[in-house]
């Protein structure tokens, strides 16, 4: 049974030039223990649908959906307070800019202990012990002293590890990672992706990975949703997607990868779409 089910999600923004549809009738579902990658380029609405689920969109957005359930509970019928309780405990997130996602005025230890105290009602000592344990789990060297560090004293990779530690602190059922490695170097990206996969496998949580990078998809996903201009183009198992992409857009994306270049020129998406006669 699916953990998160969204049916016919549409998100519209009011702008100066009239309403703009960022997400147009998208269905997504994630199973327990599954890694789902949502791939798309900028403007594909891949981040907007996540924010809609979390209820984090600004007032100018109108969100409609036929169904939005998490573990059998209807998200649409929930009060904001109920939704907030669910988010942060059972659904957690990590973001693209790890350093900017942490409050620069407090130590990382204080921030993670705050999460534990507020969400799990732990006392100070238990929270500290649990924070140490989490820091070890996400592979932060010298966890005891790093708990006292401020975000600006840590590297981007370490900050992302702290974010991950915070996100798994409550043993969530679903972790949403929005471009978790885009701001990081390749060698750090590798470490962070390996860590995410290891945690996913040991904790058995579901993972939604939002990315623009086909390489990241290839290294992590079980199933892939390809989005383009707010619509879903294709949904397939990762192997099938790379082996035999069905939609012309997916084929175009894969052939635009420089490592797949066959001749002197890279085929571009627009050429590809034109050649295939799509849109």
């Amino acid at each position: 049974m699916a953990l998160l089910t969204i049916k016919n999600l549409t998100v519209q923004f009011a702008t100066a030039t009239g309403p703009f549809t960022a997400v147009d009738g998208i269905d997504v579902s994630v199973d327990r223990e599954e890694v789902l990658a949502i791939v798309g380029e900028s403007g594909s609405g891949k981040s907007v649908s996540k924010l809609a689920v979390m209820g984090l969109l600004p007032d100018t957005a109108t969100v409609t959906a036929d169904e939005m359930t998490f573990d059998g509970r209807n998200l649409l019928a929930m009060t904001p307070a109920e939704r907030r309780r669910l988010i942060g405990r059972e659904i957690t997130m990590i973001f693209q800019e790890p350093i900017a996602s942490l409050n620069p005025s407090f130590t990382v230890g204080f921030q993670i202990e705050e999460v534990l105290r507020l969400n799990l009602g732990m006392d100070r000592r238990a929270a500290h012990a649990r924070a140490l344990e989490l820091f070890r789990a996400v592979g932060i060297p010298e966890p005891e002293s790093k708990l006292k560090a401020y975000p600006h004293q840590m590297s981007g990779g370490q900050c992302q590890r702290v974010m991950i530690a915070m996100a798994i602190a409550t043993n969530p059922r679903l972790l949403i990672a929005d471009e978790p490695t885009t701001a990081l170097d390749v060698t750090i990206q590798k470490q962070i992706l390996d860590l995410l996969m290891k945690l996913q496998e040991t904790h058995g949580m579901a993972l939604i990975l939002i990315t623009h990078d086909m390489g990241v998809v290839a290294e992590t996903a079980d199933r892939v949703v390809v989005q383009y201009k707010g619509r879903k183009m294709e949904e397939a198992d990762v192997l099938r997607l790379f082996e035999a992409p069905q939609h012309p857009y997916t084929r175009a994306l894969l052939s635009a990868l420089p490592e797949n270049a066959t001749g002197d020129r890279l085929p571009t998406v627009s050429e590809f779409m034109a050649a295939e006669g799509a849109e």
Partner: protein
Amino acid sequence: MSIVVEGKAVTQDYHVPGGMFARARTVRAVKGVDFTVEKGKTLAIVGESGSGKSTLARIVALIDAPSGGVLKIEGQEVDIGRKRLTSQMRSKVQMVFQNPYGSLNPRQKVGDVLMEPLQLNTSLPASERRERAEAMLAKVGLAPEHFNRYPHMFSGGQRQRIAIARALMLNPTLLVLDEPVSALDLSVQAQVLNLLADLQEEFELTYVFISHDLSVVRYIADDVLVMNQGEAVEQGTREAVFADPQHPYTRQLFAATPITSVETIRARVERRREILAARHAG
């Protein structure tokens, strides 16, 4: 083959002023790098953040003066620290920046962006400047009616085309490209890489291409220079470096680059299935 740009033992030091608690110190960002690029070729400088690759790019683009070493452009030694750069030399070396959203002045119309280098470095009349700018706009795949628009009306890929057009206005021999495609979407990245390849062929341009993305480097480079913490750890032709990387850091970089081949994905999926099965059994 003539050599367009040559660097010998190029170093760059940054002075970090002391604060209330820290003492002032000097950080060496580039530690004596040698390189040469022949006419019409592409040298890719690969490295991660903090490797000094962008610092080196700014030196080659004649923006910052190096702290030490010699930089020669077409055999002529250039030291902007001691002598003001001549318009002639400025015209030879141009640069394209990483972020097309930051490298175009938001209050400058595209036409003015393109005409500015001509206005500052040549004595061409206004009508001629305009003609050349329009021709260049067409060359990079934009339309003449884009001439009077502002940068924010364009997509990232279009903006990078404008930035490339600006760099080409002075007919440079050397183009320094600082991560020109890393801020772009995959599909747009392909278009811009194609454009760069076409332009190189047409104008016999020499590229110094800064990148962190090995797959892009493999596609575009003739020679590769791998930098780590200010040092050039490996240097060679693309074939040599990719086929047989010598330095451990280069190997580490290769190992970390995601692979999108079907075989690797299949192997990973298999492995994962076993792990999950073991978890459920246990």
